């Protein structure tokens, strides 16, 4: 820290000021760290591994579907592949992605704190995540599981001959990691804010992660209970879900979606936070309608809890439940639309800079809008009946969860990469990658909307030949998309060794994190920052 205060050291090429990465670079120094920034890296490395594992499963699925008869993989292997893809991507990548990596790194810095409120709990969260991940991975690789990520009963509890309990145990365990992270975010936001940082001055990324923490803490226990009941049902036949024993097969779906619908907001709210920061910075404008943005985050988090039944419009739940859940689903679309309006309006009369993070953020805007609008199709009851469990649904939730959450995650990673690593990356390659992602994504998933309306059901390993052409387009797109995901892996890794040194604030952005060094020192700030104004004081 004292080194940093000697100005002459800044100008010497190979003399780094001391920072959180340079000291104590040992295995022990990493595995027992309580520094939120190092824990963010532990998560980043782990979820990247899971992302590419889930991605390989996705590519196998797309390869299989190039031809109609189902001739590459057996039905069993195909079912295990889409289950692996779903389980890994949802629970071990999408849910922790932005909160556990960018959130972990930035939340304390953005509120001007030295660390999380509970640094040791933060490390424990990562260990729990790792244990759950290894458990599920072992189950999935050793025996496989073929229930899909939704584990619907009575298939999962009575009929599947695969390692259901083992796979679900890992998901059960990883839930605790999610709960602890959420708790840490909430307490950090409440108690660790720097002097002058009132709630009305919080960056939207902090607001978004705060709301996400709330959902994690409130919803995840329901998933834990649901999986526990499913395991007991399978192991002991307790009869909660088995109609032969007086149980209710739909109860599982109610309980499951009570968590898993809010889980979509666990993925998308932090993404919205990232995009708000990026668009403000690269438009050089304050976010349009800050208050409206905060209210929308709150409304999405709250309404997100009362729409789970829209996954069950054709299930046999009562007609009036269907009507009620459709109504709330339309309502939850309003705050999302308001946010889209506000992001666009933020660009109005700005000074727009098409850097890679901005291209990612604008891609998010386009993909999220298509995902959101097709959500309106599915909220319309009669249309949902036709589209339910078809490729239309597959395309819709990929637009939200991959087009939205993953694109924003990559945008955020590019935006804060100089802060996290102290290095810049190739501007050219990062733009190429962002464009490849946008093109590849649309080519992969847009044909799936058409497949869905023409009737193609999801989770089919073989299908009528008429659907082949659109599947071929989709698989081609997946190839382009894979390039969009592999390129950043290459040039970001390159930047770690060869990238030019990053200044403290390469984008000339507002926010307390940019006041720290790049990379920051161990406790972030040499002295506690004081906040005197709003979060987006551009121009």
């Amino acid at each position, binding site marked *: 820290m004292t080194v940093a205060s000697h100005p002459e050291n800044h100008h010497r090429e190979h003399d780094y000021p001391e920072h959180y990465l340079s000291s104590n670079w040992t295995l022990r120094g990493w595995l027992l760290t309580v520094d939120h920034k190092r824990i963010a890296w532990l998560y980043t490395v782990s979820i990247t591994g899971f992302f590419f594992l889930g991605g390989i499963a996705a590519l196998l699925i797309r390869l299989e579907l190039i031809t109609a008869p189902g001739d590459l993989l057996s039905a069993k292997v195909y079912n295990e592949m889409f289950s692996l893809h779903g389980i890994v991507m949802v629970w071990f990548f999408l849910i922790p992605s932005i909160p556990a990596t960018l959130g972990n790194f930035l939340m304390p810095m953005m509120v001007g704190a030295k660390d999380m409120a509970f640094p040791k709990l933060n490390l424990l969260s990562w260990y729990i995540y790792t244990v759950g991940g290894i458990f599920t991975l072992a189950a999935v690789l050793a025996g496989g599981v073929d229930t899909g990520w939704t584990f619907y009963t*009575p298939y999962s509890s009575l009929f599947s001959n695969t390692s259901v309990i083992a796979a679900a145990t890992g998901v059960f365990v990883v839930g605790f990691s999610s709960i602890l992270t959420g708790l840490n975010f909430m307490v950090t936001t409440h108690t660790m804010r720097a002097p002058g940082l009132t709630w009305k001055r919080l960056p939207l990324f902090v607001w978004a992660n705060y709301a996400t923490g709330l959902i994690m803490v409130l919803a995840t226990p329901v998933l834990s209970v649901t999986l526990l009941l499913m395991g007991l049902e399978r192991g002991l036949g307790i009869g909660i879900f088995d109609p032969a024993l007086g149980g209710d*097969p739909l109860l599982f779906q109610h309980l499951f979606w009570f968590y898993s619908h809010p889980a979509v907001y666990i993925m998308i709210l932090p993404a919205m936070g990232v995009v708000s920061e990026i668009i403000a910075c690269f438009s050089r404008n304050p976010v349009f309608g800050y208050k409206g943005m905060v209210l929308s985050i709150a409304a999405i988090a709250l309404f997100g809890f009362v729409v789970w039944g829209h996954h069950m419009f054709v299930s046999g739940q009562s007609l009036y439940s269907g009507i009620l859940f459709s109504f709330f689903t339309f309502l939850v679309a309003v705050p999302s639309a308001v946010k889209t309006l506000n992001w666009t309006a933020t660009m*109005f*009369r700005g000074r727009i800079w098409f850097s890679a993070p901005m291209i990612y953020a604008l891609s998010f805007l386009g993909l999220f809008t298509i995902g959101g609008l097709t959500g309106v199709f599915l909220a*319309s009851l*009669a249309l949902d*009946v036709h589209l339910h469990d078809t490729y239309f649904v597959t395309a819709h939730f990929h637009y939200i969860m991959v087009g939205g959450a993953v694109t924003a995650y990559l945008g955020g990673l590019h935006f804060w990469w100089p802060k996290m690593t102290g290095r810049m990356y190739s501007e050219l390659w990062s733009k190429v990658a962002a464009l490849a992602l946008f093109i590849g994504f649309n080519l992969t998933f847009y044909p799936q909307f058409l497949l869905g309306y023409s009737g193609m059901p999801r989770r089919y390993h073989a299908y009528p030949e*008429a659907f082949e052409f659109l599947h071929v387009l989709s698989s081609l797109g997946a190839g382009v998309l894979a390039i969009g995901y592999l390129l950043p892996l290459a040039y970001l890794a390159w930047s770690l060794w060869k990238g030019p040194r990053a200044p403290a604030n390469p984008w000339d952005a507002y926010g307390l994190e940019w006041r720290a060094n790049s990379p920051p020192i161990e406790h972030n700030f040499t002295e506690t920052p004081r906040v005197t104004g709003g979060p987006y004081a551009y121009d």
Partner: protein
Amino acid sequence: MSEQSIVDPDIGLQLIPTEASDYATQVDHLYFGLLGLSALLVAILVGLIVVFGFRYRRSRKGPRKPRFSDRVGHRIEIGFAAGLTLLFLGLFYWGGHLYMHLYDDQQSDITVNIVGKQWMWKVQHPDGTREINTLHVPVGESVKLRLTSQDVIHSFSIPALRLKRDAVPGLYTTAHFVATKTGEYRLFCAEYCGNEHSKMRGRIVVLSQADYQEWLTRHGEGPSPAVAGRQLFQSHGCTGCHQDSAQTPAPALDGLYGRTVPLDNGSTIVADEAYIRDSILQPQKHVVAGFQPIMPSFSGQLSESEIFELIAYIKSLQPGEWNQDRASGAPQ
């Protein structure tokens, strides 16, 4: 299942599937409406991003005029949110109205029982005709589907009718339609149901009414569900308690369907299909007032199709029918 069990009609790729019912046309109208609205909104959004991105790009020098005042900003936001809410309420009503119509329990000309099973659809027509993975229906008549499953959850999906309904074990779900166009259409299982899920496919054949009658006479060999149910009722010994003597230990079942039944816990229940089903499989669940809970469960002894038949038999019994039978000495 072997490959041969798949009986896909060869109808090519249809981005808008054939509209084989008026309902399908109405759903498509909603689809086109939403498609138009979405295209408009996406065009506005992309247009704004492109225009802003060009006009306000960083390299373009010169000052930017001031942005909206907070007051104007709030008005834009509130106006946008209010307008959108109204629009969504309209769409909510449109989609909900059609949905109620599809799943509403209403009278139908023909009721077809469908049992999902790993991995086939077993269909039984009112006259007892059975078929697998194929559903023959007449054009222009209202058809009610009564669905259940004997193992996992399946979903009966006919894109040409824009119709889909889950078949859930232990539950009866219904849907109805009037096909308006003869032809062959695809039938899928839409809910993942295990290894051969993707082979649980078939076809629906909409015939003219004359052809349908002819098809029934050609294939209709089995007894109707009610007649088959009566045989089951006798062969499983149900008559011994429910029907035989004046001092029966069990309630009489003639005229039961649709009646309100008093239970021994003081409550009442309407005798619908679910109640009859529960009484067969879980007889202790609803004990009728004044009777002992002594009936054994028939769970595991009857297939879903047999339960359908028993219910059909009990539904067919008119009030007082058994007394008349006894008085006239008719054989049971």
